[in-house]
Structures are given as structure tokens and as C-alpha cells.
């Protein structure tokens, strides 16, 4: 953070409220993420974590407040436009196109691009050698761990500036979770900003720079990962439960 340009956050929530019908889900949420950071959003079930990610992608429109990408308001834009501007997501439960092949899943991740994909595919094969062996297989027949790899690969195919991840550890065996977090760390080190939603707070905080804690739609804690790990309130509410 030496030059002045990077002081514009890559992603910012300004006092965002969202509703599903009459029900308020997000309540005055403020989040700031700098370029190259890895930030996690922690919180229990139904606290509004997925809604937060959907709000970034324009799948949910805030009733008030703004979401900014590179200092530009993106709330109100269509998902297509937001994806075009460099946001992509690994959704909760991966949600691959089960009836398409692994290769088709990767290629559709690059739907908005028209240039050559060879380099990107090579990069994904480097991260996940397993994926290369499965290219012709239908995605629905992959194991959970393999599906996670393809889902991350698919999200990377659009060359995102910001990668959103919704509970990447959900439903995976502990060994796979560790591997998965390794990969996320590598992707982040290579320059992609990562915003990750997790219930596995220990794991997430062990690789993240900073964290936010969401409780029934409100940010109740925001701090560096180290401080959050040491925070007694945090330990009682989240860290103990997740082990």
C-alpha cells in the first residue's frame, strides 16, 4: 500500500440494506476490501452471508446503500455487467453444470471472453492436475473434492479481479478442506483479491488477512485475522463451535 492509487478499495459496501420482500436481510453493512487482500466473512447459519455475495453480483439489489467496485457504483447493474467488470464466484455447494463435461464447465466460465483460453486452462491444470484427467467426464459424476476444483477453475476462467467464495469447505473431508484452502491462498498470492464466506472460522482466519463477523445481517466485528483469532468474544461464539 505505497502508492495513492491503491487506496481506492477494490470492493466496498456503503451502508447496504437488502430485503427479500418485506424481510430485511442486510442491515447497514459496511465492508472495505483493498486490492490483493484476502478477507473472510464469518457468521452463523442464515446470518446473510450468501446474500452479501449475491448483492455484490447484482443477483440481489440493495434497497439502500451502494456497492462499489474500483470506486464505481455497481449496485443496480446486471449480473452480466458485474461479471464483465471482473467479479466471479464459487457458489455454495459448487453447483457445476452436472450434465456438461468438465471442459465445458471450464469453458463456460469464460463465457464473456472471446480470446484464447489455452493459457488459463494450463494454469488451472497446474493448480489441479486431477482436473486435466477428467476433462471429458460429465461434471455430475465427479466426487465432491473434484467438483470443488472444477468450481474454482470455472470461476478463475473469467480472469476475475475479485474472487468470491461461498463456504468452500462445506461438505468436504478435512484433508480436502486443507488442500482447498492451500489453493485459495495460492490464487490470492498470485494477485486475485479473495472475499470468502465461511462457517469454518478457524480455517478461514488462518489464511485470511482480515475478517468481518455478520450476525443477523449486521456486521458486529471487523478486525485483522490475528485479532479475531485472539478475541475472547469470537472464541466463545464461533471458534469453539467449529472444531
Amino acid at each position, binding site marked *: 500500500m505505497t502508492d495513492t492509487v491503491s487506496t481506492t478499495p477494490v470492493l466496498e459496501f456503503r451502508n447496504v440494506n437488502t430485503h427479500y420482500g418485506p424481510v430485511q436481510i442486510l442491515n447497514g453493512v459496511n465492508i472495505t476490501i483493498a486490492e490483493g487482500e484476502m478477507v473472510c466473512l464469518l457468521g452463523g447459519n442464515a446470518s446473510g452471508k450468501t446474500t452479501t455475495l449475491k448483492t455484490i453480483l447484482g443477483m440481489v439489489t440493495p434497497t439502500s446503500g451502494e456497492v462499489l467496485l474500483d470506486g464505481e457504483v455497481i449496485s443496480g447493474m446486471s449480473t*452480466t455487467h458485474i*461479471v464483465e467488470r471482473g467479479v466471479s*464466484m464459487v*457458489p455454495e455447494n459448487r*453447483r457445476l*453444470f452436472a*450434465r456438461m463435461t468438465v471442459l465445458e464447465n471450464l469453458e*463456460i466460465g469464460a*463465457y464473456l471472453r472471446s480470446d484464447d483460453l489455452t493459457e488459463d486452462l494450463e494454469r488451472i491444470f497446474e493448480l489441479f492436475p486431477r482436473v486435466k484427467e477428467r476433462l471429458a467426464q460429465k461434471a455430475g459424476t465427479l466426487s465432491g473434492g473434484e467438483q470443488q476444483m472444477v468450481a474454482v477453475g470455472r470461476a478463475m476462467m*473469467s480472469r476475475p479481479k475479485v474472487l468470491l467464495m461461498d463456504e468452500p469447505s462445506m461438505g468436504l473431508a478435512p484433508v480436502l478442506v486443507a488442500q482447498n484452502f492451500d489453493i485459495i491462498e495460492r490464487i490470492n498470492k498470485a494477485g486475485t483479491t479473495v472475499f470468502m464466506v465461511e462457517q469454518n472460522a478457524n480455517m478461514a482466519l488462518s489464511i485470511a488477512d482480515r475478517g468481518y463477523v455478520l450476525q443477523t445481517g449486521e456486521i458486529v466485528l471487523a478486525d485483522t485475522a490475528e485479532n479475531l483469532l485472539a478475541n475472547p468474544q469470537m472464541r466463545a461464539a464461533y471458534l469453539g463451535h467449529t472444531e
Partner: protein
Amino acid sequence: MAAPLLIRREDETSVVSKTVSKSRAGKFRDGWVDGFLWFIRIAAILVVGFGIFRSVVMTLNGEGTSIDAWENLIVSGVAQGAMYGMLALGYSMVYGVLGFINFAHGEVFMGGAMVSFFVAQALFDNGVWESNFALSLFIILIVAVLTSTLIAVIVERVAYRPLRDAPRIIPLITSIGISFFLQYTFAGLFGEGVKTYPTPPDYLRNKVNVLGFLPIEGTKILVMVVALISMIGLYFYVQKTRAGRAMRAVAEDKEIAALMGINVDRTIVSTFAVGGAMAGVAGILWALLFRSISFITGFLPGIKAFTAAVLGGIGNLAGAMVGGIVLGLFENVGTIVVLGGLGIPGAGTLKDVISFSALVLVLVFRPRGLFGERLSHEDRP
């Protein structure tokens, strides 16, 4: 086995039937239904088996259906089935992408064939029909495709898009309304009388010896060739193009498709457009096979094509085509073979009975259709 037949598993109905089957009364009912279905299955095998056996024996003895007649029936069955298949594609595609049966699709088909009729008539009056039939055919094909595509796209925009988030029974019922609306609009615009396309030139009405031994009427060859080309084109479109991939993605999971940057609305419109175009082609195939057209013409072929789509496994495009051909054969060959073999007189007039019995039977044996695999596994509200 008591799963709902035409509706996908995650549907409201199936949720209801699941809860019902959990109760004791439900279990009793399920047992009763299963037993009844087995009874129908066995009875069907016996009746159909006996009918086929008798008619084969009769042919071999030189009595009943002659070999020539068999050939004719099979060829007619395939040609007519190819037409049903083209129409079935539209039902299957819309079902795959939106999860409801668009009952107005038969009218989309009729609309194309009807507007083309007037163009054909004009071409005939100018002598072009006689002097250059290939050109005339090309022109009416384009007109039918454009008309049907336009109707399909407008119907989607006006009637179905506002209902995108409604339970699927609502667009389904709307589609029945649209169906009547289109029928009577065409009746009002062009009159209720039956219109007859000008006759195709002689060389198409004569039989051509395909491969040197199989005599087939020229029009039927034309029908099969046009259907084959359209089918290959559609396959290429769906499997290999960017737009086709978007269509498959939207069919599987709209939310994730949007996340990939796919414009879901536009993809749905193009699905209706492609389905409409195929219906337009089917309209011309109808004109070649039967020549007559009226505002009501869309109804029965529409229902039959829907039957074909269900036969093939709704949502499965190759299945729709195969389902069409199977239905065409059922209707033409099955009628004579089974009913003739059973000694039922006037079998030809029972065509429609046969085609819908075929639907019921296939569903009794294979509730998901011949290639029953769901195109979508997405949960819908």
C-alpha cells in the same frame, strides 16, 4: 412407480404425492395403483404381442397386409414421425429451459404453415410454383420459419415472461389460453375454411427407387431430408455453439448461468425462437405431406408432438426426434399391424386412438419416456 408422469420430480405435485404416500392411506393407495399398473402392463403385452403375431403370420401366408403395403406404411410412418419430431423439439426445449409445457406450440406451427399457404398460392398464380418448385419451396420455408419464430418470440415476451416467477401451472394454463387466442385470431384473419396448398410437381409425387430397391414417394424423401438437415443443424447449434451452450446452462441452472455472464432472458428468447423455427419447418413438412391447412390444424399435431416429446423423455432433444418417429410408426404401422392382426375392422380410422394409447403405454412401462433423463435439476419456486 406412482411418480408423476409429465411433471418433474421436484414439482409441487410430487411433493404432495410424497407426503401422501407417507400416510397409511397413501400406502394402501400406492399398492393398489401398482397392482393396477402391472395388470395393464401384462394385458398390453398380451394384446400387442398377439396382434403383431397374427399379422406377421397373415403376411407370410399371403393374406392380410402385403409386403408393399408394409413398406408404404413404414415410409409414411417415418416421414410423418419426422414432422412430429420437428414439432416435438419445441415442446422439449421450452420444457427444458422453463419447466412448463407450452401448449400454444401447435398454433405456432399452424401460423407458419397458414401464412406460407398464401405465399404458395401467390407463387402458384404466378407460375413460379410450376416452373421453379425448388425456389418456391425455399421461399415458403423461409416465410414459415420467420412467421413461426415471430409468433413464438412474441408469445414468450407478452405472455410467459411476466409469469417467469409464478408456479409453473400458471404459464401452462396461460399457454392453453394463448393456443385458443391464436387459433381464433387466425380464423378471424384468414377465415375458417380449409385451405389447400397447390400440388407439388409430378416428379415429387412419383416414387423414386432409393438405393435401387426401396421405392419412396418424392415428397416423403424431401420431408425426411429436410427434417434430417434441421435436426443436424439443431444438434450443432445446441452442442457446439456459444448460444447453444448458454441454452444448456440456462436449462440446468439459471442462477449459475447468470453468474457466468449469460443473459438469461435473451437465452430464453432464443430458445423460443429456435423452437419456433423448427415448428415453421414442421409446418412446411405438414404442407408437403397433407397439403391442407386450417386454423385448427395446429391442435392435433401439436398434442401428438407433445406426446412424442414425452415418449422420447421430455427435455431430451434427441429423444424428441426419436419419439416423433416412434409415434409416426406407431400411428401408421401399429394401427394396421396390431388392430389388423386382432381382426378389428376399420383400423385406419383408429389412428389417433393408437397414438395416444402408445403414449399411455410407454408411460406405464417407462414413466420417464424412452430416454427419460431430466434436462434440469434446478429447484424451481
